[in-house]
């Protein structure tokens, strides 16, 4: 087996010990695997692959076709015992022809930036908008702004409240809201708000609901737009609707992109923002505490996907 941790005078003591433990753990796991899955080992031999590399050498196509595999898997619930699809073999051939040119771009976009963000934010005052704009724009590689088009919110740092799911169209309820049973089990406990957000329903009916609309509600944000210094004009109200924002948990460096779909919370609550159950989970706010940074993202061409950034 290739040992990555050849002794080196410059290696730290912690590294030596931890690496030895991990190599030992890997050997044990590999031996157990070989014992349990002989057919996989035979398959690997036929293909000329080392047993330890069966999964690691997963196709480049994986990166091309999946933004997040968890989303792909949760797109539906397994009807157990269902026969294999006849299209599988055809798709297999089609997918093998996927060009590799975009692979690197997607792989780079998937980098988890949370350690970088956490480190950068640990050195700045969390109310210092200029420094935070600069740091986040640099790390996230997108323009992050406290003020955009001359418009700003009343706060860029504060407590985020845990919101219920929004009704996306008239009649949307817990039984129509989720794409899979897994999603239902995970998020139904947040229950549904009595109706749509401050700007009305995201879609006029269920049949008009697009995948983008689903994402908008899934990663929706709430801000005190009524406390914005620009409040009072119809242009400002329209400007805020679906406005893309970046939310950062400075405790762990996690970053999520969402859109404004509701106004609130009331000033008396002491909270400055609200976030959907999915936003809360992506940022791990239950474990870290609810203080977040929230800034506009300048993305006129709508290139940045909603959800956890970089994952």
């Amino acid at each position: 087996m290739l040992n990555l941790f050849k002794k080196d005078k410059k290696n730290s003591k912690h590294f030596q010990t931890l690496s030895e433990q991990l190599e030992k753990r890997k050997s044990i796991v590999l031996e157990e695997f070989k014992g349990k899955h002989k057919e996989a080992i035979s398959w690997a031999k036929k293909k000329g692959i080392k047993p330890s590399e069966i999964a690691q050498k997963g196709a480049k196509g994986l990166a091309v076709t999946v933004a997040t595999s968890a989303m792909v898997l949760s797109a539906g619930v397994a009807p157990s015992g269902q026969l294999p699809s006849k299209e599988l073999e055809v798709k297999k051939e089609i997918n093998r022809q996927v060009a590799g040119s975009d692979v690197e771009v997607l792989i780079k976009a998937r980098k988890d930036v949370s350690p970088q963000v956490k480190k950068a934010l640990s050195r700045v005052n969390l109310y210092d908008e200029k420094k935070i704009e600069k740091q986040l724009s640099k790390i996230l590689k997108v323009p992050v702004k406290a003020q955009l088009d001359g418009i700003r919110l009343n706060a860029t740092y504060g407590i985020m409240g845990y919101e219920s799911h929004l009704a996306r169209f008239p009649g949307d309820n817990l039984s129509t809201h989720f794409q899979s049973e897994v999603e239902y089990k995970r998020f139904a406990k947040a229950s549904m708000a009595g109706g749509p957000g401050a700007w009305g329903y995201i879609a006029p009916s269920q049949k008009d609901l697009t995948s983008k609309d689903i994402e908008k509600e899934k990663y929706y944000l709430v801000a005190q737009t009524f406390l914005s210094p620009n409040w009072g004009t119809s242009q400002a109200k329209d400007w805020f609707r679906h406005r893309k924002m970046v939310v950062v948990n400075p405790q762990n460096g996690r970053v999520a992109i969402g859109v404004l779909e509701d106004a609130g919370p009331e000033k008396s609550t002491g909270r400055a923002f609200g976030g959907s159950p999915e936003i809360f989970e992506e940022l791990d706010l239950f474990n870290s505490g609810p203080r977040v940074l929230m800034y506009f993202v300048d993305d006129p061409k709508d290139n940045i996907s909603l959800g956890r950034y970089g994952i």
Partner: protein
Amino acid sequence: MSILVEGFFKKDKIILELETLSIHQNEKDKILKVVDEIAELKLLDAVLEKLEAKDKELFLDQLHGGSAQIVAQILREKIENIEELLLMRAQVLEEEIIEDIRVLKEDSG
């Protein structure tokens, strides 16, 4: 890295825990590489345990050089609550690794 590890094995907490050790960045990278390799084996083990023999080859073919969409389709069709299964296995491994790091810190502290 395969769809299994990319999609389900979150290393954030491990990365944060590693930050507390006095090790260099290149050492952290090497450690995370081995952690990924262990995760690959653990998650693949979880999937193969649940697949019937006739489906294993198709799955392995797709995992190794095929399409993530088809891998996902096979898993969805063949294994009930696959997402929960993989998340659970990944979480157990994550906690084990974190515990290893914490013990190491205590022993050397």
